[in-house]
């Protein structure tokens, strides 16, 4: 009886799993075509060498490394945000944690492949296994990305178990998949306790791992002595930027899937309001970091640093630099600090701008330092070729594709957590509130008001 109730109430959440329209197949087909084209260009790159990219000396890192940093940055949306929200018992987290975690798992896999795409001899990746050196920041990356990927897929999977069990009980096909993945979940008290304990341990563990991942990625640059890279704030700067772009990606995904799968009942204005506040704060933090990074450089006025500085501010890269500032700071702050423009459309525009801006930020960190070597070399400007664009498009296509396929098999919003919210959150919040307030306020009173 109760179960039927639940299914009736939450039937919107099963919609994407049980109804597959032609639009889904068209979309998958389109993404597959893009992916196939990307694969094709990659095969050509393997055959002829990295010469078919726009890279040269001294600009030997380009799009691939930029996208690597960018995609790994987005991955911070998920697990980090969901872990922090869970840890702080924010009640509004319930409908958004799942999406955030899915972003992490997919994007991390895409980002992790980029250094291999960038390699001149991809089959020699095995040399990392046989004779790697843990002294190199690249190996720190390998270790911490592997750890983050393992932890975040587990962290995505564990809260999914009760939902998989619901699907299994509904008889959704393929049945064996849900039977296999649900591990005999029946929702008994003891099972709930085990799962809760595991999730609690993981969410505490995942936060330092997530922070370490982007710190270590910044170290790839910061550990060298190159002007513009050798900076002590790079670790926190990259982490802040990563969370910033992650929230923007999460907002875009939420808005898109809310529209496509009609999830308005679950993803309400308030969720966007809270998340966009977070985005606004991150935008300010990002500006603060950027400001202190460039002010120290400018004030120090070291000639080699200044070459890179002016390359960004007034030189060849100035259009990108100022677009970045507009996209990352002026537009989001402008839109989000005004309650009139802070509606779903406004938030969507701000988020897209932030993603563009953060991608440009990665480009601005990687390329100008390489384009201005200390000694006098003639340097050209880096112009990416079709290969690099195709592989970028391929990465984005895999991201959307991964999301669509996930949504085809699993609920994008945690059903059991919503249900749990219905059952327990009112009394829990009442209890929490009463513990904040002076003792003379009765708990029952708060409960009454909340109801």
């Amino acid at each position, binding site marked *: 009886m109760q179960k039927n109730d639940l299914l009736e109430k939450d039937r919107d959440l099963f919609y994407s799993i049980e109804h597959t329209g032609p639009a889904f197949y068209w979309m998958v087909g389109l993404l597959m075509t893009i992916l196939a084209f990307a694969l094709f260009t990659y095969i050509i790159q393997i055959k002829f060498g*990295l010469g078919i990219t726009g*890279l*040269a000396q001294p600009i030997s890192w380009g799009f691939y490394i930029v996208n690597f940093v960018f995609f790994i940055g987005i991955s911070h949306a998920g697990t980090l945000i969901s872990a922090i929200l869970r840890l702080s018992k924010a009640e509004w987290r319930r409908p958004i944690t799942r999406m955030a975690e899915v972003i992490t798992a997919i994007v991390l896999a895409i980002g992790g492949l980029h250094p291999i795409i960038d*390699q001149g001899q991809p089959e020699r990746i095995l*040399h*990392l296994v046989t004779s790697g*050196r843990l002294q190199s920041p690249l190996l720190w990356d390998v270790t911490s990305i592997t750890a983050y990927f393992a932890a975040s897929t587990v962290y995505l999977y564990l809260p999914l178990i009760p939902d998989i069990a619901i699907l299994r009980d509904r008889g959704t096909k393929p049945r064996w998949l849900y039977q296999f993945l649900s591990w005999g979940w029946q929702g008994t008290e003891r099972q709930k306790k085990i799962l809760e304990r595991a999730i609690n341990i993981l969410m505490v563990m995942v936060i330092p791992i997530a922070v370490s991942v982007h710190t270590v990625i910044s170290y790839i640059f910061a550990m060298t*002595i190159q002007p513009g890279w050798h900076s002590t704030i790079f670790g926190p700067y990259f982490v802040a930027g990563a969370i910033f772009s992650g929230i923007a990606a999460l907002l875009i995904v939420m808005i898109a899937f809310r529209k496509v799968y009609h999830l308005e009942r679950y993803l309400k204005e308030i969720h966007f309001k809270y998340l966009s506040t977070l985005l606004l704060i991150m935008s300010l933090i990002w500006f603060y970091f950027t400001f202190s990074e460039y002010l120290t450089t400018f004030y120090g006025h070291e000639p080699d640093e200044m070459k890179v500085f002016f390359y960004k501010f007034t030189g060849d890269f100035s259009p990108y630099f100022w677009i970045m500032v507009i996209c990352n700071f002026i537009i989001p702050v402008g839109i989000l600090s005004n309650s009139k423009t802070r509606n779903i459309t406004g938030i969507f525009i701000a988020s897209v701008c932030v993603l563009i801006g953060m991608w440009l930020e990665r480009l601005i960190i990687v390329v100008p330092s390489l384009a201005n070597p200390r*000694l006098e070399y003639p*340097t050209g400007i880096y112009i990416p070729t079709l290969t690099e664009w195709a592989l970028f498009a391929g990465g984005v296509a895999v991201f959307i594709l991964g999301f669509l396929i996930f949504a085809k098999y699993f609920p994008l919003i945690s059903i059991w957590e919503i249900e749990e919210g219905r059952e327990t959150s009112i009394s829990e919040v009442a209890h929490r509130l009463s513990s904040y307030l002076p003792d003379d306020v009765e708990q029952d009173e708060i409960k009454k008001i909340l109801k």
Partner: protein
Amino acid sequence: MARWGMVIDLNKCTGCAECVTACKVENNVAVVGKDESEMGRTMLWMDILTHYEGEYPNTKVRYLPRPCLQCDNPPCTKVCPVRATYLDPEGIVAQIFPQCIGCRYCMAACPYTVKSFNWYEPHWPQEMAAALNPDVSARPAGVVEKCTFCVHRLQKAKEQADSENRELQDNEYIPACAEDCPTQAISFGDLDSPHSEVSELIRSPRIFTLLEELGTEPKVYYLSEIE
């Protein structure tokens, strides 16, 4: 053990680029076409950097031959993920081509930008392809390469000395650039041996190294120009 080093006298250097050519031939450095070269993919282990001073008509051009500086504290070897580049016991920064995975991290880390990358499979004009140096391997596409102080010459000289049952002598091992320089601007030898030419030259007041402030301790020294 010897510590190999080089001293380049900028006062004697005319910028004739004989060292560049000698190096290219000795080490089978690939030849790239015009288009590639314009993109910045020229491969040179020994390069000559030019620096223009003053306004026309009182301009002055300065030349700076630049091999790999063979730092004693190399920023490139620290970051290599697979030990394809490392400081060998005689102070030469080795570059092991069959081990290199082509991540180009060492290129990004080198403050002197001495490394080049094989963007394509290397090729030579037909006439040159028949005359490659058999002592140096042709690098495949996708690996980083740089000046090795002609380390194959060191191996050969050592073997010759060993088979004649004697120590390696001064001037027995000399890289191609030093050997071919028409003005003898490049001297080469053991920095640790007190009587070698280079160890006498580095006591000169004109001596300096490139980007000294970085603490990379290069073993390629320069003698500044006398005005």
